[in-house]
């Protein structure tokens, strides 16, 4: 009984112990706050990095036609319907849409210019994406990227005026010519906003796209260049700058025409009802089903055939995750420093309280009881300090943006530069299991540090201790 009573009394009576408590409070508060902010960055970056990527991307390697149960052969290159049917049957799937992707060179001034000066920045590698507008809107953030506000940037690309298309349900429409057209209307395309800025594109401008295709007729690894003029009818902004600077959307059929090949699609994009919950289940299920039907190789053999969006961004996400872990380790050192404070204060206290320890022994306290007494002082410091630290950390994390703005305006300089990031606020995401881990770790490490002076106290010779005046 005396352990609880005396430890609390010592804690109350000796204000120096509060320094240790304050140290733990600051350490735990900082850990909770910083890790919450890092988690917020991670989450926000995940959203940003994701861009227009769909939940799942299925890209068969098109090795053969597919034999159906009823004996029909499906020409896989042109017929995607059976595959979509299988995918849409899955209960975890919300939407699925085919896409045709190809690579090309962007050459606004015409194909010749691109090939004449290949090493100059007059050309740019781009991603040609043929889509079904409706399906794309259902399966990806395509529609959101058309709704994103178009803002003119000062300086670079200030002449650019490629805004969003007028009709979001039917964006691929040629602009009305000012003068009566003589030539055939060019294929309408949507360009990424960054691309438009970089090239100073104007609405209605005609540009050249150059690409290479494999010529089966010549049965050589010879490439036939295809090039054609397109009309820029609008721009889009996904959450990923990289995508915005190299992607061009057009109608899937139009892209197939341009490529002059019999392939009508290259990938199927899938959106799930609940990605975080179902991603692995649905992938496993669909993969084996599509394999059984002959569309894909056996699961796991060609991992590029079936990817989640995270697979595309694996390195970047891992980097942020890594930073978070490093931050956690570095800040844990603060906790160690707080532990040292507790160690020093308790050691001092044991020295000062030698006589009391002797008295307690004379009155019948066991060495173990004395050990527990000093451990409990450490325990209270850890529990109280980390509880308040966690509270302050959580409160700070929830209000970090307001706090930063207040601090910035008070001290007159920008602490968090919002222009650097793609989000204009400081994100924070409090994980309560994380907070519990931090508090648990703080209590554990403090107890570890308190154990040394407590053990020393328990080893004191009561006769020596009583002589201490």
């Amino acid at each position, binding site marked *: *009984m*005396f352990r609880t009573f005396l430890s609390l009394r010592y804690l109350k009576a000796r204000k120096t112990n509060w320094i240790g408590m304050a140290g733990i409070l600051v350490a735990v508060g900082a850990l909770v706050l910083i890790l919450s902010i890092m988690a917020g960055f991670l989450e926000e970056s995940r959203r940003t990095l994701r861009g227009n990527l769909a939940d799942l991307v299925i890209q068969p390697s098109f090795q053969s036609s597919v034999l159906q149960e009823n004996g029909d052969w499906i020409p896989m290159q042109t017929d995607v319907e059976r595959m979509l049917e299988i995918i849409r049957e899955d209960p975890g799937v919300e939407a699925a849409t085919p896409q045709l992707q190809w690579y090309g060179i962007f050459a606004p001034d015409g194909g010749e210019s691109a090939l004449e000066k290949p090493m100059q920045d007059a050309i740019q590698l781009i991603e040609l994406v043929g889509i079904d507008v409706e399906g794309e809107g259902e399966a990806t953030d395509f529609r959101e990227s058309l709704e994103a506000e178009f803002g003119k940037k000062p300086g670079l690309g200030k002449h650019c005026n490629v805004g969003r298309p007028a009709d979001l349900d039917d964006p691929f429409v040629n602009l009305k010519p000012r003068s009566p057209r003589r030539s055939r209307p060019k294929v309408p395309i949507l360009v990424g906003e960054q691309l438009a800025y970089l090239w100073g594109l104007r609405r209605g401008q005609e540009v050249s796209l150059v690409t290479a295709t494999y010529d089966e007729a010549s049965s050589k690894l010879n490439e036939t260049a295809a090039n054609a003029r397109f009309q820029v009818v609008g721009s889009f902004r996904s959450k990923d700058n990289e995508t915005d600077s190299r992607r061009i959307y057009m109608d899937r059929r139009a892209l197939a025409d341009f490529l002059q090949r019999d392939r009508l699609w290259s990938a199927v994009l899938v959106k799930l009802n609940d990605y975080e919950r179902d991603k692995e289940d649905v992938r496993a299920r669909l993969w084996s089903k599509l394999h059984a039907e002959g569309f894909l190789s056996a699961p796991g053999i060609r991992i590029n055939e079936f990817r989640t969006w995270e697979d595309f961004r694996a390195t970047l996400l891992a980097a942020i995750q890594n930073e978070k872990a490093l931050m956690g380790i570095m800040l844990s050192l603060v906790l160690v420093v707080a532990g040292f404070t507790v160690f020093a204060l308790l050691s001092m206290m044991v020295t000062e309280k030698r006589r*009391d320890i002797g*008295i307690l022994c*004379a009155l*019948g*306290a066991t060495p173990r009881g004395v050990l527990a007494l000093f451990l409990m002082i450490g325990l209270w410091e850890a529990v109280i300090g980390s509880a308040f630290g966690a509270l302050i950390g959580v409160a700070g994390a929830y209000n970090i943006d307001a706090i930063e703005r207040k601090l910035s305006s008070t001290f007159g300089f920008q602490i968090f530069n919002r222009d650097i990031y793609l989000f204009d606020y400081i994100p924070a995401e409090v994980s309560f299991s994380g907070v519990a881990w931090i508090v648990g770790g703080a209590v554990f490490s403090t107890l570890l540090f308190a154990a040394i002076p407590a053990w020393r106290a328990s080893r004191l010779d*009561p006769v020596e201790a009583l002589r201490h005046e």
Partner: protein
Amino acid sequence: MSDPGPIQPSPGPSGEVVLSCAGVRRSFPVGDRRLEILHGIGLELRAGERLALMGTSGAGKTTLLNILGLLDRPTEGSVTVAGEDAWRLSPKRRANLRNEQIGFVFQFYHLLPELSALENAVLPAMIKLSRSAYRSNRKEFVDRATTMLTRFGLADRLRHRPSQLSGGEQQRIAIARALLLDPPILIADEPTGNLDRGTGEKVLEILLDEQSDRGVALLLVTHDERLAKRCERVLYMEDGLIQADSSAPIPT
């Protein structure tokens, strides 16, 4: 026991033996040699007996007291408390013996400065009992301590800290603390040594009154002849040995 020689301790009153030691030697390392303080001491303390231990400084009185109080381990020999060979017990059982069988009164009071008078007095009960047992018996112990402290004239000092109290008051609290659990043995190391004469007298009265009322065996270390006179037996120590044992006060 039947040998009443001047060197051997003589039997005291015929109460049962509550504390005894036999062949106790204690030596301390000094440099690479060992310095022996006690050279084989045997004594018995019987229930209700008042035993004074006198001797010059450095005779080994305090060392012997620490050994009899189970605070210090003899280099050789045994200490028996309540019929048990204390140094053959586990540290926990030995601590229990200290807690329940022996009450200590020190020269420098030795109260815990962070606790009030009342809290200091009930400390042995807190040490003895688990949290739940203490909680259910708290009132009993607080009442017992309050009654004692009131009897000792400290009724209006219960909430005071030791630093707010005089030496005499502190020593009375220490006596209450020593007697809280009704131990059969009371060990007092110069209980009035740090007090002025008048105060010392009062404290001594309290100590002796309580001792005889409760029939506690009292082992008293003192330099004070007048105090020794009030004890039934006086042992004189010199150079780590008991040199004289008298069941009556020695002539001055």
